[in-house]
């Protein structure tokens, strides 16, 4: 597996120029996940509307290119999604990374699927799987309204 496939253009773009990389001015859900192995952190902030739609989502954190790109792309994908479909995407993405199986993403809309599928090579680097899933663990925890820091 070549590293070029791992560090695809979209991943490099999001890691060097992350979107929604700030603390939201107003949020009602937040959680932080921490990878003890490397010290990577991802703190996710969510503004959930009364109708349980993710109105705003952002992240603060530090970590490798995979972790930052995954955080950034996640905020783009989960924005304006209902809580229910957010959980579905989170679970699909986690499974997709672990199994390197794009079919797992079939229920995700195409524009999101294209972004998420750029992480396909991560599964070939088992030591890097946690880098990609860390922000998603934080987002899931935030949606469950668990604020305790997670040692992922």
């Amino acid at each position, binding site marked *: 597996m070549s590293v070029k496939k791992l*560090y695809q*253009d979209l991943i490099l773009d999001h890691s060097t*120029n992350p979107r929604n990389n700030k603390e939201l001015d107003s949020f009602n859900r937040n959680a932080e996940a921490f990878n003890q192995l*490397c*010290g990577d952190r991802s703190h996710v902030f969510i503004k959930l509307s009364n109708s349980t739609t993710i109105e705003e989502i952002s992240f603060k954190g530090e970590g490798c290119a*995979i972790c930052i790109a995954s955080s950034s792309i996640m905020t783009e994908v989960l924005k304006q999604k209902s809580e229910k479909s957010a959980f579905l995407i989170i679970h699909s993405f986690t499974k997709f990374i672990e199994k390197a199986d794009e079919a797992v993403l079939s229920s995700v809309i195409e524009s999101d699927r294209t972004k998420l599928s750029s992480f396909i090579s991560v599964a070939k680097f088992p030591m*890097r799987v946690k880098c990609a899933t860390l922000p998603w663990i934080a987002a899931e925890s935030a949606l469950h309204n668990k604020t305790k820091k997670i040692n992922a």
Partner: protein
Amino acid sequence: MFKDIKNQFPIFKNKTNGKDLVYLDSANSSQKPQSVIDAVSNFYSNEFANVGRGIYSLAVNASEKYELTRTNLKSFVGASDDYEIVFTKNATESLNLVATCFAEKFIKDGDEIILTELEHHANYVPWHFLRKRKNVVIKFLPIDEQGDLKVEELEKLITPKTKIISVTHMSNVTGSITPLEEIVAIAKKHNIPVSVDGTQGAAHLDLDIKKIDCDFYSFSGHKMYGPTGVGLLAIKYKWLNDFDPFIGGGGMIDYVSKKDIAYARGVWKMEAGTMPTAEVVALNESISFINKLEKKNIIKHELDLTQLALEKLKTNNSVKVLTSPKNQGGVFSFNIDKIHSHDVSTILDQEGIAVRGGHHCCQILHEVLNVNSSVRVSFGVYNDENDIDALCEGIKKCQKIFEKK
């Protein structure tokens, strides 16, 4: 310096990711020479019996071999008869023994322990356990801008409540070598025992613990070209009887009745149950391996490589080495501008280069140096100048991948 030495290490015959292996992670664990691997195999094939129990010839011979490693280790560390060597699982267990089976007996609530900002988690967490149990205060001897310990500040940290000082022999991140004799001299004035985490020192630095005059010296077999599963703890003889046994069981008792038990004397008290026998026996081969090459040659070889690597990396403006210690061993860590250590590590791995990325079990030091993580390079006897060239090329490749954006 050590011509064709890679041939003695079978691991270098294999490709890693299709490339020749460039192993730059000896501070983590060293690779094993054929003689050590053969010694494990030979012991199981031809000489195996449990030690210290049976009185048949096979058992007696096995026991003798096991004890021979202990004897040779004593000379290896310069221990003489003033010290005893206890076999443990690893240096981490040795440090835990010092904290739990020795220090805890003498430490009361409110007492103080001095560590340093350079410590590996193995020389912090056991003391943290003690802090949780006994409410002791842990103080950290700071480092200066170069990454060396400010030994001149030790005196200020010591109070009548200071009960033990535990320091590393060499930082596993920056390679800064601790002036142990100075530290022990200060501690001696106050009658404070000194424990040394020798994990990085044993295979790579000049070692004469009698001259250092420390009270405890912990190290690991697997970092000195030996097998995993064996740790060592050199204990100054006068403290041996003050150690409580760590775990109870067979082999560590003198007399057992329904009412009471008397423990075995000396080191046997500390080695309950069947020990990693083949590993201890094979460790003798790694001592021979190091002795044949001679420590002074090993030190020079690794230092030359370190200096060469640092010089070559200096020409790359994006590479920032964490610190530049005055007295450095064969270890250093760096970061490449805007590229995380784990990304560097993954890209180098594809080139067959094994380095460690992360905080190397030294979160305190990384916090002090204000970096999230780093890439570590550490040398062993099998490294050569080609490895450094491969590293420099690999770093350029990392930059190229990230340059695109």
